């Protein structure tokens, strides 16, 4: 059970402020999710390289020589920027697979949070305010982003149990609710070759969407079929390279508020998350319909 925030900017002038606006929204959702927090931020695609966001529980040891070690092993050029327990590796498209396999050998304990041209995912255990500070989310710029605060229901409070979950290149998923058929679905997806890091129901939702998209569905179709195949209560927000989507289960008990102005589209589990956005007084504010897939893209 959780809080979700999302912000999709139409006005380029706001892009430098994306991180600070999203941080403010995230912190208002602390009561809904005090256990862990995470954010997916979609930055700029200026250098045409792939971004690999990784996480380590022992960042000093794992990250200190990683850049060099990867270059020595693969011969590929790697640029790394470290943010607390996370680091973003930028690599050319042609060498991403080599880097991934080298990373697995050199630092088997490192975990991949996201891969894509522009996405970066940061998530950790702790209060949303502290998590946002550790990664200095407020200083980040970008076109859109999604944040999540988690109150764990059944699965453990861990970094990997925090949201967002990566569902593919430049894609991620956050969830508020509780699925009721995720164990069977996890077993089914495992047989199909999907891998799992946690016992979290949302990870099953994420893997389900990934699986559908690997098998020919686009994101919209995958979300449509989730309404059939996932049982339980959910509000999902999915991030894509050029925007985000929202879907609620047919019962739609878990809260969701949207706001739109000429400058942005925003999502919040509660209106409180939206109150400090510019021009919110005159924004179009509404609640997404149940069992309906919404998308906003650039």
């Amino acid at each position, binding site marked *: *059970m*959780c*809080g979700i925030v999302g912000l999709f900017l139409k006005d380029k002038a706001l892009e430098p402020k994306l991180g600070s606006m999203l941080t403010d929204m995230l912190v208002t959702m602390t*009561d*809904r*999710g*005090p256990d862990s927090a995470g954010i997916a931020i979609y930055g700029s695609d200026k250098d045409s390289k792939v971004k690999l966001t990784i996480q380590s529980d022992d960042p000093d040891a794992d990250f200190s020589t990683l850049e060099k070690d990867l270059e020595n092993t693969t011969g590929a050029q790697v640029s790394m920027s470290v943010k607390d327990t996370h680091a973003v590796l930028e690599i050319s498209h042609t060498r991403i697979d080599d880097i991934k396999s080298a990373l697995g050998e050199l630092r088997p304990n490192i975990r991949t949070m996201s891969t894509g041209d522009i996405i970066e995912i940061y998530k950790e255990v702790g209060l949303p305010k502290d998590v946002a500070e550790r990664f200095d989310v407020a200083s980040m710029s970008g076109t859109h982003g999604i944040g999540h605060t988690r*109150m764990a*229901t*059944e699965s453990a409070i861990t970094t990997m149990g925090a949201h967002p979950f990566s569902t593919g290149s430049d894609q991620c998923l956050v969830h*508020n*609710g*509780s699925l009721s058929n995720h164990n069977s679905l996890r077993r089914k997806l495992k047989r199909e070759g999907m891998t799992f890091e946690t016992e979290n129901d949302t990870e099953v939702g994420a893997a389900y969407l990934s699986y559908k998209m690997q098998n020919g569905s686009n994101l919209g179709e995958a979300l449509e079929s989730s309404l059939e195949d996932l049982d339980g*209560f959910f509000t999902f927000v999915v991030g894509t390279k050029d925007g985000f989507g929202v879907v609620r289960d047919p019962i739609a*008990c*878990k*809260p969701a508020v949207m706001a739109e102005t000429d400058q942005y589209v925003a999502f919040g*589990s509660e209106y409180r998350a939206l109150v400090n956005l510019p021009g919110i007084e005159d924004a179009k504010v509404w609640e997404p319909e149940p069992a309906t897939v919404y998308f906003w893209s650039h």
Partner: protein
Amino acid sequence: MNEINKPKDGIPQTAPIKSATFTDPINAEIRRAAATGIYDIRGGGAKRKVPHFDDLLFLGASISRYPLEGYREKCETSVTLGTRFAKNPIELDIPITIAGMSFGALSGPAKEALGRGANAAGTSTTTGDGGMTPEERGHSSKLVYQYLPSRYGMNPDDLRKADAIEVVVGQGAKPGGGGMLLGQKISDRVAEMRNLPKGIDQRSACRHPDWTGPDDLEIKILELREITGWRVPIYIKVAGARPYFDTTLAVKAGADVVVLDGMQGGTAATQDVFIENVGQPTLACIRPAVQALQDMGMHRKVQLIVSGGIRTGADVAKAMALGADAVAIGSAALIALGDNDPRWEAEYNALGTTAGAYDDWHEGKDPAGITTQDPELMARFDPIAGGRRLSNYLKVMTLEAQTIARACGKNHLHNLEPEDMCALTVEASAMSGVPLAGTNWIPGRNGDY
């Protein structure tokens, strides 16, 4: 030797054997379902045999531990509930409370008797799925007001008159189910209190109408505290479903007290299939709930009340030794009032049942005049005498629990520990986390499978 397995022509015959799967009661139920097309509805809790407190024993004291003298050396029984956030926690003389039972399910005089008995014994009683009656408030010095999905009779005046508020998420008899009150019991007064047409079959909602999940519950609790000025404790009652997670989430949502009701806990009426097949035995629920509180550093700060099959002072002592702060009784209190008393045997027989088995409370024909709204039957029940029986029983249970605690060398019931007990069966040992008698073995805990 009877006729059917008598040798025929000098040859011994196969004896007729009834199926252990298709038993007489099962077959009768199949025939009943086929004839009527409706599931069996009844009151009470699980009747099937499940591991229970009877499967635990106390070790007592001897040379390594020293007992306390009965009566002369004190053994305290008091408990304070709701110390976390409430300005006015509830202070009880004994750790045995009366569980929520509705006016509607019970007659007005029966509710009055519960209040009288609880008062005399120094404990609290609880409303139910039908609102608060003036008789009940008047006769209960400490009254817990239940906040249920149906919200029948819910109003801010009664809320502010309550000594504590119990947000009911679930009930041991039917985790995930709503209440039922069938037409026979929707009398004029019940109909008016619940704002329903007289004589209908009322089915309550299973989820609260205006919140779902712990993140919303936290806000609901804020509202209830704001309306009551943060004065009274907020209990959250959960069924024995996933006690570790449910206890954790109740505490995260802001509960002062968690009430945990195992599958033997009763109900006024629901489907038999629900009562017998959903939920965990009380014995299996306590340790995970206590573990959850301990993991958050909240054991004894958020109090745990356990219910579902508490019958004796030994059960009270055992629940407390497993980590509960108090217990609640429902079915046992009704029996103390006179429910299922053999003195009405002829009338039970006329209803097709027998004393001790009568559970068609929803039909409103209770010969003892307790689970009914029929004025003639209700008149059989004297609330003053009933209250006296209940207070006697509560006092006996307390004395029994003290007897055990003193034998274990405890000057307060709260000082009983799991280590004061042993388990008689492997099942009870695994469920309660208490070692099997004569061993140090707890299946599933210390590795020695």
